């Protein structure tokens, strides 16, 4: 199960993660080794075995849809690198 450089680059793009050339090569090798190791799961008979969705003895947890106090705006914005007029400020989403 050897990964190619292109596969690592594609997955890095999906994850919005910039990698250096050295990182791409290192991850390609290391992840290939891990996926090869994961092949032991193919020896397990999984016919009629359902996947685990949760380990808990619970179903959906619901609550009343009620208005509750939330954090004040200035507190929410306090950690942001860039804000303006009570908003998070970001670079242009669309270019012209």
């Amino acid at each position, binding site marked *: 199960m050897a990964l190619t450089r292109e596969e690592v680059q594609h997955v890095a793009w999906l*994850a919005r993660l910039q990698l250096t050339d050295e990182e791409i090569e290192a991850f390609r090798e*290391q992840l290939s080794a891990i996926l090869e190791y994961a092949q032991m799961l193919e020896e*397990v008979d999984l016919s009629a075995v359902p996947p685990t969705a949760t380990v*808990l003895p619970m179903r959906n*947890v619901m609550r009343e849809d009620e208005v509750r106090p939330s954090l004040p705006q200035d507190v929410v914005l306090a950690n942001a690198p860039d804000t303006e007029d009570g908003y998070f400020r970001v670079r242009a989403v669309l270019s012209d």
Partner: protein
Amino acid sequence: MTLHRLTAHEARDLLRKGEITSTELTEAVLRRIEEVEDKVKAFLTLTPEVALTHAAEADRRLEEARKSGTQDTLPDLLGIPLAVKDVISTAGIRTTCASRILHNYIPPYDATAVARLRAQGAVIIGKTNTDEFAMGWSTENSAFGPSHNPWDLSRVPGGSSGGNAAALAADETIIAIGSDTGGSVRQPASFCNHVALRPTYGRVSRYGLVAFASSLDQIGPMTKDVTDCALVYMAIAGHDPNDSTSVNRPVEDVTHHLVPEIKGIRVGVPQEYFGEGIEPDVADVVLKAVRQLEEMGAIVEEISLPLTRHSIPVYYLIATAEASANLARYDGIRYGYSAEAETLWEYFMRTRGEGFGPEVKRRIILGTYALSAGYYDAYYLRAQKVRTLIRREFDQAFEKVDVIAGPVTPVVAWPIGWAMENPVQAYLTDLLTLSQAIAGLPAMSVPAGFTQGLPVGLQLVGRAFDEATLFRVAYAYEQTTRWGEQRPAL
């Protein structure tokens, strides 16, 4: 005076009698930190001013209660110094996850576990080192450098909750809370000779625990002895409406099970926990501990958990898949590190590429791959099916036994640097702590002796929501052997 050496229950008794004050205790711990922290590097942030303010407040409550003779009704952890792993949110106190991407993040709210400890009056003295986002085994993946094992400063304290482990072994705190996704409180406890509990999944609220792998993460106590572990567990366990995976059922008072009586308790010893890949001297120490349990009246029988080694790929596929989704939130917009960039896409790519360290990137890539089109069935779904079989294997074992005993790790603490050079081999050292997390079971690490001058832990695994039996066995073993009382020369 060596107040920093006290356990929480010893300190509680002295505080209630008025023989010491929380201010004296907190000052002693802060002095100890000043003395040894250069060597140990357990903390990422220290909060001495806040700590002394809270200690003074605790002293006022203690004095008032003594005047009215009600000191025995006070919370157990009132005035007790507490270290918090830096992946657990603390309102107003920097919480970095040992990552560059959160180097300046100050949470606006407390994690529920922290809020409950603060409500008891515990005194937060600082935030402790961890592998970045709790991904690792040694604190070597911290963006701020590794912590050192007080038993041998050239070795790792384990991880990911390694800062807590180092702090406890060096008496730089009285109690601590960490998080365990695949062994992260148990393995460092084993490497540093103290007690830790991974509670049943759903028993302790994850609200405010920075998410790594949501179906596996649990907050757990790390303490100097089993009694302290019970006190911290009782403080943080219980239902929380802010966490939809928190279970709404009563918490059994485990302090009633701190009795040295284990006659008739059935202890299962899985052959796979002592076989290939386990260092023989580690296995010897733990087998001796099992014989001790037998001498005390437990009924020991050999069992088999054949899927133990499969837990490694199951864990790494599920945990990394969940991590890739959970860590998508770090986009440099609402908080955290912010890169230079012209366009928004470039900004995301650079912020994340520069903000995350190598292990986190490795896991995001693996998890994204395991979830990506064409591979989901082969990796993620298959892993979740094997997870079902691992749970069934434990269910069957617990029809015959009450507790499962074995080592916590196959090795003792390794030299700093080894896991960085051998990341893939390092994954294999998780062999004995993953399946319990995969199945959501409670598991404990208790000091069991030494080999090569380094500590070895005994792991005890219980049925879901049966922490009580774990505490009973751990307490009985501790009272007979007292390995945890040994301290390193620093």
